[in-house]
């Protein structure tokens, strides 16, 4: 800024100096006698100053051109304004200059025309003629005077000449020899002792016999007549006489001569005068043009500066720099208002940006908070859009569904069932809820996963996202498998425990009482009554035993088990159990296909499971029935399992009870406690397996249980030898 101010000051000072120089040149032209000596220095100074100014303007224009090429903001407008100002200044000044030069040229030419020329010549000739008359008179007088000198001696001549000079009124009178030696001198000023020497040409002319008469000017500029005459008496002397021209004639003639000289000189200098005037005018023009050019560049820059600033600022804002503030122009005009408005705008944008950033940050914090909370939940949470596409899901959802749900963002919910068929009930129930447009809903969904049965407690609610696309949905689901099982187990355990406690306690006194009756009265009673008593007490004791057995079963069920887990070869276990039933009337078929896969299990408990299932089958199949026991291995969801199936060809399960056959005390048999399958389920569950029951298409019930496989049997025994065992009764 300071540098620019200095530039302006320097340029203005230079302009002022040049203007002063031009003014002085003009003054020097008008008063050449006083200031003429300054003319050329001023001219040179002006030229040098103009060259400097030209350099300054050239530098400014070059900068403008450079900015224009670099497409600097505002340079185009600057260039256009500069060009406009230059044209506006150049055209009128050039026109004025052109016509001024023409007028000047014709004006100077008009000073010198033929009439004035001839008039001047005539005036001079007239003066000459007038003087010539006077001269011829003086020449004659001089000759007469010389003739009147009679003396021959130089001394006498010297004495005589003073009288002659005074008589003739001459200023100076000198007698020379023809060799130029002064013989006598008389001057009206007695102090002057030396004569005015004639030049050699005059002397030669006189010696040659031709008298000389001429006009000269004295020291004061007065005209004098000078005559040189040769002595006719052959004395070898020459008389030089100087006569004053009459004052009036002298003055007039001198005036004419001065005027003529001036005119002649001016006429001769016509081209030079024109050149001088043109030069001065051109310098003024160039100074004016340069000043205009500099002012154009300067003004354009100054005018465009706020606009350039705004352009720069706009670019900065476009690039995201909202803190840009522009310098306010000192002049309060519309541009200043524009700049102030721009500054206000950027301030507001910056404030809005900051607020937005703050909100975004808060939102992010809330989002993170929510994500942390959701992530920490053991409940699965999944958000869907109106079309059933997955929007988000928490970690628990991944764990419960066994799929990276969060990675399936934006995909249809059906992709879950495509990835894992066992999730189909969950997907279908959820989509059905969405289809039906339910705002809220609850459902308990049971999934049959590779790892076993899984019960999900799902809650679905619509989510008003406020988007035109419609409602979204939130699915919240809990894996309540363990909870439900634990609740049921706890409930049945309690029932069993109470039953055992409440029933078992009176059984022993009943049994003891019956035995005491029998012991006390059987022998003493008549045979008929004794038979009745024997039968009755026998029945009591038998039924009490049966009830004890039943209560023990309940007790077993309720009793928390302690598993003695070890690797068990299922196929071997099956074969071992099946041998116990070799004596049974039914047809027993074993198809062991686990290929030696081991399970971590308590073999005693597992035997109980198999016994319970086989006994059930035997009871259901009847005497000629067939019991098939088979095993196989498989892989689901990356984990190996062993599946054991026990089928019979009996009437199968009552379809109405099919869903609850594993509940305690649910049975369609006339015998039994109804705890067999419940115990099966419990033991299977204790081993981390699942059990299911259904009816075969060709008839007969089927119970399938699956246990997670531990590892394979050691290689030595790893010979898949499917064991087929069959026996028909």
């Amino acid at each position, binding site marked *: 800024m300071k540098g620019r101010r200095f530039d302006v000051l320097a340029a203005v000072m230079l302009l002022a100096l040049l203007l002063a120089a031009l003014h002085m040149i003009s003054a*020097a*032209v008008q008063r*050449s006698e006083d200031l*003429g*000596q*300054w*003319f*050329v*220095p001023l*001219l*040179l*100074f002006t030229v*040098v100053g103009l060259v400097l100014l030209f350099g300054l303007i050239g530098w400014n224009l070059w900068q403008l051109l450079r900015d224009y090429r670099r497409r600097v903001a505002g340079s185009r407008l600057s260039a256009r304004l500069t060009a406009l100002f230059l044209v506006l200044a150049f055209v009128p000044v050039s026109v004025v200059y052109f016509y001024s030069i023409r007028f000047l040229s014709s004006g100077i030419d008009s000073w010198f025309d033929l009439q004035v020329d001839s008039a001047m010549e005539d005036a*001079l000739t007239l*003066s*000459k003629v007038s*003087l010539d008359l006077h001269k011829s008179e003086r020449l004659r007088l001089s000759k007469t005077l010389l003739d009147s000198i009679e003396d021959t001696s130089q001394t006498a001549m010297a004495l005589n000449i003073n009288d002659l000079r005074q008589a003739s009124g001459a200023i100076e009178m000198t007698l020379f020899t023809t060799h130029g030696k002064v013989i006598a001198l008389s001057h009206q000023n007695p102090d002057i002792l030396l004569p005015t020497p004639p*030049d*050699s*040409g*005059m002397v030669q*002319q006189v010696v040659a016999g031709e008298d000389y008469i*001429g*006009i*000269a*000017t*004295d*020291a004061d500029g007065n*005209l004098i007549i*000078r005559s040189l005459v040769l002595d006719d008496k052959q004395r070898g002397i020459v008389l030089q006489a100087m006569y004053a021209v009459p004052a009036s004639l002298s003055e007039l*003639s*001198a005036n*004419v*001569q001065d005027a*003529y*000289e*001036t005119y*002649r*000189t001016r*006429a*001769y*200098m016509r081209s*030079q*005068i024109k*050149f*001088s005037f043109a*030069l001065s005018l051109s310098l003024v023009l160039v100074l004016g043009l340069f000043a205009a050019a500099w002012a154009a560049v300067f003004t354009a820059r100054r005018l465009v500066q706020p606009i350039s600033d705004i352009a720069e600022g706009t670019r900065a804002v476009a690039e995201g720099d909202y803190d840009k503030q522009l310098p306010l122009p000192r002049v309060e005009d519309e541009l200043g208002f524009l700049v102030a408005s721009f500054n206000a705008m950027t301030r507001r944008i910056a404030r809005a940006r900051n607020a937005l950033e703050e909100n975004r940050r808060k939102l992010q914090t809330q989002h993170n908070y929510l994500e942390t909370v959701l992530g920490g939940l053991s409940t699965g949470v999944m958000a869907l859009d109106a079309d059933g596409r997955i929007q988000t899901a928490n970690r628990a959802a991944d764990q419960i569904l066994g799929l990276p749900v969060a990675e399936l963002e934006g995909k249809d919910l059906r992709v879950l069932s495509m990835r894992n068929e066992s999730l189909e009930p969950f997907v279908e129930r959820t989509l059905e809820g969405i289809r039906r447009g339910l705002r809220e809903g609850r459902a308990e969904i049971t999934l049959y996963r590779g790892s076993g049965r899984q019960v999900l407690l799902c809650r679905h609610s619509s989510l008003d996202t406020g988007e035109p696309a419609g409602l979204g949905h939130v699915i919240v689901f809990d894996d309540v498998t363990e909870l439900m099982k634990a609740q049921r187990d706890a409930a049945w355990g309690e029932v069993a425990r109470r039953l055992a406690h409440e029933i078992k306690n009176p059984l022993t006194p009943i049994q003891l009482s019956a035995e005491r009756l029998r012991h006390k009265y059987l022998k003493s009673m008549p045979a008929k009554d004794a038979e009745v008593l024997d039968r009755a007490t026998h029945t009591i004791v038998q039924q009490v035993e049966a009830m004890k057995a039943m209560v023990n079963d309940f007790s077993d069920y309720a009793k928390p088990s302690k598993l003695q887990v070890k690797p068990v070869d299922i196929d071997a276990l099956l074969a071992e159990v099946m041998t116990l039933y070799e004596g049974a009337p039914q047809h027993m078929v074993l198809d062991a296909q686990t290929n030696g896969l081991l399970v971590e299990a308590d073999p005693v408990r597992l035997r109980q499971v198999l016994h319970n299932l086989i006994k059930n089958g035997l009871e259901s199949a009847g005497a000629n029935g067939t019991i098939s026991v088979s095993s196989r291995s498989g892989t689901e969801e990356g984990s190996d399992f062993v599946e054991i199936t026990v089928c019979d060809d009996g009437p199968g399960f009552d379809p109405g009870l099919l869903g609850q056959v594993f509940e305690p005390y649910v049975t369609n048999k006339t015998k039994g406690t109804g705890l067999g399958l419940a115990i099966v389920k419990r033991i299977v569950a204790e081993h981390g397996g699942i059990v299911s029951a259904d009816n075969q298409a060709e008839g007969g019930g089927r119970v399938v249980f699956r246990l997670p496989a531990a590892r394979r049997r050691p290689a030595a025994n790893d010979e898949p030898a499917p064991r087929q065992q069959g026996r028909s009764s």
Partner: protein
Amino acid sequence: MTRVARILTAVLLFCLPFTLAAEGVEFRRIALTLSEDGRILLDADIGYDLNETVSEALENGVPLTFETHVQMRRAEAWIWESDVVEHRLRTVLRYRPLSGMYELRNLQGNERLAFATRDAALRTLGKIVAMPVIDRAALELDEDYLVRIMVQLDIESLPLPMRPIAYIKGDWSISSEPWEWRLRP
């Protein structure tokens, strides 16, 4: 012309692109003699040869001022040391149309001489007879002095309109080569 203007002119002229050729004036004879009364006198015979442009200007009434610059300074003088002697003899030559004569006017003594021919006027102009330069007594006897004489047509005395042209056109640069002589009094 004031001294400042003269210096400024000299400085600015030094910057001009053209060179001032020494022509039109030659020294035919120069003599420095010691008079009986102990003064150093200068005698010179200088030949002037006016070219056509200058002659035409003279015939048209333009007065020509010739300046003979006589300068004497110590031979070992520093540049800022002033001259021991500096004489400027300025004489105007002009043509008088009324008398048809050439007039020489000595600007020092305001003495006028009229000549029927230009040659006679120029001859007289070129004659310097027994011009006293300095008293010998005023000089250091064991010091060397440099006498420098130069003659030139004074352009600054020309009529104003002619000056720019005269500075630019070589025809108007009428001057002698500077004549220098080492002197021990």
